[in-house]
């Protein structure tokens, strides 16, 4: 502190605080071990309590219930879906097509990968056709005509304990990233 001395404050130099560990005449006779253990007990306890506080703080930030819109829904049983057909049952409510083929069941997003319109399933020509700009997708979700840059996305699909299908929209699988081979992108039945 170069200019500390040139200030006009006349306050006396603060005395060095008494070091905690320093023995004095009064305590010289005492057992050093007990002296240290009290102090260390104290600090250990204090640190533990502080740890408790921070644990509380962290846990406090995770509420026990969430008020989030449900992103998963139960889509009935596998037998509700006919092999080789596209079910549009959940299109309006959840934005999902459920398709069953010879191997199993998968859930396709109804959002066109071009500009986000909702294509229609044309059962006669076996394709999804987007009414906005004419993108076409096969029943697998693969794009084959029109401006859509990539295939439709698939959602996570698993089976509940009672055999019901659960579709989880929080998890998407993109074909171009090779994610369709993920075990939960496809339900084997």
């Amino acid at each position, binding site marked *: 502190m170069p200019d500390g001395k040139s200030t006009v404050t006349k306050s006396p130099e603060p*005395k060095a605080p*008494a070091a*905690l560990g*320093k023995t*004095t*005449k*009064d*305590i010289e006779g*005492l057992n050093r071990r007990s*002296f240290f253990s*009290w*102090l260390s*007990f*104290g*600090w*250990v*306890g*204090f640190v*533990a*309590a502080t740890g*408790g*506080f921070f*644990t*509380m703080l962290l*846990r406090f930030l*995770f509420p*026990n*219930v969430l*008020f989030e819109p449900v992103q998963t829904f*139960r889509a009935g049983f596998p037998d509700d879906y006919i092999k080789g057909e596209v079910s549009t049952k959940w299109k309006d409510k959840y934005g999902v097509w459920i398709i069953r083929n010879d191997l199993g069941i998968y859930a396709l997003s109804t959002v066109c990968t071009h500009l986000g319109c909702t294509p229609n399933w044309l059962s006669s020509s076996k394709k999804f056709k987007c009414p906005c700009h004419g993108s076409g997708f096969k029943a697998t979700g693969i794009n084959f005509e029109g401006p859509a*840059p990539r295939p439709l996305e698939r959602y996570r699909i698993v089976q509940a*304990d*009672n*055999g019901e299908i659960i579709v989880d929209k929080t998890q998407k699988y993109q074909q171009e990233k090779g994610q369709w081979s993920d075990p939960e992108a496809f339900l084997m039945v």
Partner: protein
Amino acid sequence: MSESQERHYNILKLNRVFAISSIIFTAVWLLVFVDDYQRPWKKYQKEFRKLEIEKVRAELSDVSIELESNAEYNALKEELSSSEQKLQNRQNELDDIMNQLIIMEAELYKNNQIYQFAKADLDVLKYDYEKSQVGYKKNTDIEQKYFTLKDSVDKYFFIREQSEISIDQVNDARQKITNEINQINSSLKSLMREQSMMQRKLSKVDPEAMTLANKIGNIVRDLPVLDFIDPYYEVKQVVVNDLEEDLVYMGMPKVDRCMTCHVGIDKKGFEDSPQPYTTHPKLDFMVGASSSHPISEFGCTSCHLGRGRGTGFYSSAHSPNDEETAHRWEEEYDWEPKHYWENPMLPTRYSEAGCYKCHSGNMPLKEAETLSLGLSVFEKSGCYSCHNVARWDDAPKSGPSLYKLASKTYKDWTYKWIMEPRSFRHNTWMPHFFKKGNNSSPKDIVRTEQEVLAMTEYLFTNSESYDINSMNITGDYDRGRILVSSLGCNGCHQIQSTPDPDYDPTIQAIRTEQGPNLIGLGSKVNEDWLVGWLKNPYSYHEGTKMPNLRISDQEAIDIATYLLADKNAEFDDLPTPQVNDKILNEISADFLSQLLRKSQVDEKLSDMSTIEKLNYSGEKLIGHYGCYSCHNISGFEGKKPIGIALNVEGSKLISKLDFGFWHDEIPHTKWDWFYTKINRPETFDLIPNDDGSVSVKELRPLDKSRMPHYGLTEKEIDGLVTLIMGLVKDEIPETKLPEKTPDYLAVANGERFLHTNNCLGCHKIDGEGGAIWPSTAVWLEEIAGSQNSEDMSIVQSFSPPLLNTQGRKAQPEWLLNWFQNISMIRPHLQVRMPSYDFTHEEWNSVISYFQSKDGLALTYENPHNFSTTSDSYIAGQKIQEEGACINCHFYGEKKPLQDAITWAPNLVLTKERLRPEWLIEWFNNPQAVMPGTKMPAPYIPVDEPISDVKEYWGDEVASFIGDTTGMLYGLIDWMWGMEGKEDVSSIVKEHLNNEGYGFISDDEDDEWGDDEW
């Protein structure tokens, strides 16, 4: 300078204090964590988990045992091992293929990548190429590049495809080898599906069925602090965004956490488990995911009320069903009524109140017996007459019209009746206004007597004249008795002289109380009036619900003779007091002083004669007690009812209900207040004493509670309280209400119409109604002995017809016509369909109810075409011949061959009356359409060899062999071709007069048959 001089405290001591306080601090923090971890609901979830484990284990062992004993399963298992053996022999071959595949798949991966990358480049180039065409300068360079690349992309595509094809070929080869084993495996899998599902389920809940890692995870996931990640025991909740919790100034989306403890509420299989684990008792109707009220869309408290966010017994505002439960709860759960929450949970006895929020337009409400009973009682008691409820805005007054009272009855009777209706008719719906707890002191009685005298006087003075022709025919008591029990009077009226100790109020029971209990009429009405009334009720009171039964003069006299023979001597002997001027003055003064000063009142009174005073105070008293609310009384047209409106009574704040001096005697809940008010309306005028007696508050006569006493049973009051608790101001969004399709509305309106007009007092529809049946049996017993009356099929055949499938059955034009012009259909019936004065619209609403109920839209229908020369017609003729329809049915004026007991409608009517489509249904299985009917399915040759059919039934029938419907259409063609007399009533009458029904009876002395009628 020694350092110790600069210290005040001994540092060692401070260290010690520091250590102790730190340790205490740590301990307190631990306590905080323990406190947070202890949640009241956890023990229930733990307990439920045990139940679930037990259940799944049991199910799994059942399934496994079943599987072990399944022959197909065992065979498949053996097959599997043998084909595994076979496969082992070809293992080398398979390994080769697999190695080949790996190489080829690597090839494909590469080729695919080349193609994909080239295509990606091509797409970019395509964009550039397209973009380069914008504007004037065409870039041929890009164009050329684009097309060159396009060619090579096509080439790469082809290469990739080649790889794919060769892989497919190899795969095919592999599949050929493994085909057998795969097939066995897949059929094994499908057999074991249930078992593996159970195993999976068990491994999720049962630690013993878990892997070691999962077992550890199972513990770790529920440790304190870590239990936010994926706890097994957790607060469960349902958020219903469009149903709102009323927070006074705003609605908040409903959040229900009831299932946190009531874990089994939506799971089948816990029906017999104790609370709170029990499955919802009506899972298919409520709560269940596939029911019409799934828990995810309706929550719990939207029906049951309570504090849905609560996860503790007390904090969720449970309400006990009765006092005993309350005591138990106090002991077990430290329960007390939840303060600071306006809508505590409804006790189970009132839980149907929730139904009314959305289904206020229905009657009866399916699956809600208590509420339906409440609605029925509310209507019968005429509660709505004094207490406005929007639903009954247009309903007629519930009591009989008093416009022409003087022509019907006597002053004395009227006085005694008003004073104490139940002393005349034990189960009347007319309530007691007097001799209640708050007006029974001798002083009160003296005044009451004068009040009633005044009202009687007013009623008679203001009664309109009504001409009655008296007839000079004598009636026969017995004939009257038989007529009353056979015409169908018992669908609406009882004749029950003493109270039934086993009376159980139900909608069905109340149906027979549509009209008054016909006892003591001799004390009440005069004969001429009664005869006139029976012949045409509408002429006495246009709005009456009593229909016209097309009763002849003789019949009317007979019935009157029978009914009037019953006199209530005890009632007749009750005294009628004299007019007491002093009291009358007091009464008149009470009313006059509302408008005038004391001196003016005295002056006015001295000017009035006794009769004037009687009439004056009578009018005022009728206004005061609100008699006009239920009865038409001249001088009170258009007056507002005297009670408070109940439209949102269930939402009333409890602070607005005055518990008077009863705050310690009656639980502080809305429903207990309502119950008390209905059960003993004067309660809040009384003061409870310590010894159990009551004293009356100091009240002026006009300040006393006027609410009358109905003498209802506990069950009926519960129904009313349920209804009142359902009258709430909640705004329910359209999405949660039943969809108001035309069909839905038609059915709802129809059901209400049928209820209001008591159609189900006589008819039965889909198992509901038919209140008259027991009295049919009584009548049968009388005329044909117990052998017949105990045979339900005979009782049914002599009761009004079932209305099942009526919409599909009848041709609407005919039905409308018939309603307005009733004629005989079932020749054997004594019961008569009355003639109602309903309008066209009303009848049409009934018809569209029938049609909508059967899913039939009102559309134009093609007439049924047929030709009398067609094969079909001739076949039909043959079938009716063989089926001997003539045994029971009239063919025009041709009488059936059998006795009248089995008679059935005239088939000539059929072509106008019934729909061919329904007839097919009917012929195929009469019992399915009308359970209990005596109609057999017509016999048609189905399984017989065609040659036999040709021989016995003829070529025409044979041409329809294998076509059941075709044959039945033949029958219809034949009926459509029938001509003849439609109205056979005279023939029937003559036959019955001469030959009777032909009951097979022990008692051969059939007096009925001899009667002239």
